[in-house]
């Protein structure tokens, strides 16, 4: 398998809820809208979605409640059987897996974190975290050792013997995270993991999560209904509405070039200068004559504010983190973003 092959590849995926979804989908005319489908007595949980997740990438799925985010992710892990289309995980069509193979896949490759934690109330933190290991038959000492390791990783040392009920919400979600990491999954699904937490704790957990991701470098599908959270975490954001993906792109592109009005409404109130990076705004060099010190492409326009205001050049060279010039930024364009003038 080449390094560039996607980890998850979904093509024209449908998930319909209703009395007999398969036959309904077969008879479904192309271009029928969500509301028309609902009038027929079906809910289009996922509606003709094609999307790929690259290795090591963090894809954030964003959308309002009921837009189909959870359903889509449950299709990826085959907690739902899809109605139409194909989903491949590491090149393997997951709908063709037998029950046994599916169990093996989940035992070795996938981890999932849930909005309301989904902890087993009768098990201690240690036993909850060790649960997936126990299910796959690892021996007692191994699984205890591994569980203690992940518990330490999420900062719950000393709470191993507590029961979920004895922990705060944030701590419970740490347990959920530790459990999902215990089997060292390649793919990590997180379904609104921080939505049930207070804003302050949420912020703290996001930082914690970024730290973990830095360390582990997993392929991640992260769900949220909070656009700020999506912007903070994502490599790419997929915005969903009525079961369909409206736009799937980098945060810079979504903010600068919203594909639909619906997406534009989300980006309206966003302080673009804090989101957009120099490299996202830069144009190809294309023979422009460049002079002077380059600016860092990984910085946001907001971070570059002082340079942008003080510099007198019309065109600024943009370099990647190795110092190689990769593009050119028009200072005026950048200033417009900074001042919110478009």
């Amino acid at each position, binding site marked *: 398998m080449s390094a560039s092959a996607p980890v998850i590849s979904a093509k024209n995926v449908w998930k319909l809820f209703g009395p007999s979804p398969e036959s309904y989908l077969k008879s479904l005319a192309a271009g029928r809208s969500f509301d028309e489908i609902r009038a027929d007595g079906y809910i289009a949980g996922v509606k003709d979605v094609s999307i790929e997740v690259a290795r090591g990438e963090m894809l954030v799925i964003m959308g309002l409640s009921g837009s189909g985010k959870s359903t889509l992710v449950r299709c990826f892990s085959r907690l739902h059987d899809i109605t139409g289309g194909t989903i491949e995980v590491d090149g393997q069509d997951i709908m063709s897996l037998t029950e046994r193979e599916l*169990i093996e896949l989940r035992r070795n490759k996938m981890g999932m974190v849930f909005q309301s934690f989904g902890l087993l109330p009768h098990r201690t933190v240690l036993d909850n975290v060790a649960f997936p290991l126990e299910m796959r038959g690892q021996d007692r000492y191994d699984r205890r050792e591994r569980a203690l390791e992940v518990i330490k990783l999420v900062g719950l040392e000393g709470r191993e013997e507590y029961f979920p009920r004895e922990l705060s919400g944030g701590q419970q979600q740490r347990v959920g995270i530790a459990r999902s990491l215990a089997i060292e999954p390649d793919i990590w699904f997180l379904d609104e993991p921080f939505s049930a937490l207070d804003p302050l704790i949420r912020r703290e957990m996001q930082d914690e999560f970024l730290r973990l991701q830095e360390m582990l470098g997993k392929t991640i599908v992260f769900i949220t209904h909070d656009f700020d959270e999506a912007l903070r975490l994502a490599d790419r954001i997929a915005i969903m509405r009525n079961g369909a993906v409206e736009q799937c792109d980098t945060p810079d592109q979504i903010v600068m070039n919203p594909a639909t009005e619906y997406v534009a409404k989300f980006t309206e109130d966003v302080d673009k200068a804090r989101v957009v990076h120099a490299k996202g705004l830069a144009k190809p060099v294309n023979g422009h004559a460049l002079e002077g010190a380059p600016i860092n492409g990984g910085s946001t326009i907001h971070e570059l504010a002082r340079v942008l205001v003080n510099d007198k050049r019309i065109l600024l060279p943009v370099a990647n983190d190795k110092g190689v010039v990769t593009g050119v930024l028009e200072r005026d364009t950048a200033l417009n973003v900074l001042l919110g003038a478009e």
Partner: protein
Amino acid sequence: MMATLSTDISDTRDGPWGQTKVLTALLVTALALILAKAIGILPEWLNRIPEAAIPPTAQVLDAIFNFIQNDLGLIYVTRFIAEGPLEFLLDTSANLLEGKRRWPYLGPIPWSAIAAVAAVVGYAVGGWRLAALGAGTFIWTAAIGQWKIAMQTMSVIVVAAPLAFLLGLVLGIAAWKYGWFERLLKPILSVLQTLPFFTYLLPAVIFFKVGPTAGAVATITFAIPPMILMTTLGLKKVSPEVIEAGQMSGCTRWQMLRHVYVPAARTEVLVGVNQVIMLCLAMVVLTAFIGMPGLGAKLLAMMGSFKLGRSFEIGVTIVLLAVTLDRMSKAWVLKQPVHFERGTPWWKRHQISLVALGLFFGFTLLAQVFPILAEIGRKQHLSQGKEIDVVIKSFLAIDAIKGTTEWLRWFLNVKVLIPFRNTLLAIPTPAFILLVVSFAYWVGGRKPGIYAAIFFTIVAFSGWWDRSVITLYTVISAVALATMIGIPLGVVAARSNRWSKSILLACDTAQTFPSFIYLIPAIMLFGVNDVAVVFSILIFAAVPLIRYTIIGLSNVPPEMTEAADMSGSTRRQKLMSVQFPLALPTMAVGFNQAIMFAFFMVIIAAFIGTQDLGQELQRTLAGTELGKNFVLGLNVSLMALTFDMAISSWAEKRKRALGLD
């Protein structure tokens, strides 16, 4: 205006208009029949179903049972179970608890050791108060000289309850897993839950031979339904995320069930355990009617010979056992696991078990040295049966008391019960059925109405019409009286928080008493007659009425009562126009329960001497008339189900209409 009018009409297609017409038709027909009889023009075949038209249901059933029993050889299977594993378990527990000469020849365990363990268990689940309750119950039982009979009862419970739990759990899981099985099981369960206990007893005796095995089998069968229902309920309530977490952890189906579903449904399953234990106790006591020794048999004998003091003492023992078992199992439901800090040594983690073990062996050894700790003999016990007898009898002989009870007895019998009974008996069968159907239709709607018609027609053709009517008469009189007492009491209690709390607690406790207990005060006050039967049913049925009245009234949303206060309504207006309408659906649940309790009690009370189905049922217990036993039981069940359906349907509709769900 137009709009509301039109919706009104379309809404009521089979509502008031159609309903009124149907109701009028039903009632007019019923009245015509009654009038015709009054003036003597009603042909006899319309008054009572002629003997010739009554199908020989009992004989047919007997033939079927015979076929299953002998030709299919089911009896060999059941006898094998009875004489094999079940008897083995019962013998073992009987040896340990009461010292029956069977394997493992270790018992009886000294009472002091059991009391000590009960105290430790009580402490573990609920602290010092439950420890005191546990120890106190067993010390009382031993001291009063009832240890042996109490252990005869307990030795059946300790076998029956775990078996009922296991069977209920397995069936509950099956019902949750397979929709068709649940649909099949549901009607069977509702019949089983309304079938009188005596109907369980006779088949048990025939298929599982007389003695503890039959008692245990009947008890187990009776205790299973609530366990099934609680299990399915709990499994259905497991949160989807917990299920998905299990799936994502790579659980196989079996692992899901074993490690995710059942533990996550723990609370409901344990509530089921509590109900199983309580039902087992209530039923084991009743197996006295097929001659099983134990507390029930003793109580039956004492009440039969009017030894009130001893009856009272046995009653106290049964009540104490019931309360102890109930409180401890409930505390166990509520008990949440608490962690030990890391590095807690082994003996500290198991401290409580170690203490229990230590006390158990300690007292067992001590009992070898001090025999009084092993068994309290005939001469040593503290029973005051005779003295209490004298006290009760002289109390009842006080002129004022005697005057009151005798007047009440006379008044109820002559002025209320007998005239009411005669009226009901005078109504022609078809008219009676029509009246019941109109009631069910009026209260519950079309479906309960149709079922009422079917069920009561079956009763009419069972050949036991008059006795069924007498059963119904007893139930109606008792529930009517209970309503007159229970609802005002509930209303008054609901006024103050403190009162409602203590009365609710008293009701909860009273509900754990085995029904048999309620006969004791009835017999004490009124002797052995119809009034005592009605009285015992009355107190038994008043408990749920009071309970649900208080619950209903105190659950009225405060906004509503505040709105009434702000509109300047008086207390009475508030009660009548705000609180009652909102509490009525809940109160209806209590009313329904009162009727079900009454049907249950009326059959048991029959041994005091009534002429209803219960008496016939009890007679069958002496013989082998399985068919007749079954027909009688089914009659009770069908009548109870008719009311159950009508009232529950009303309560549900009403709740939905008020948005109280």
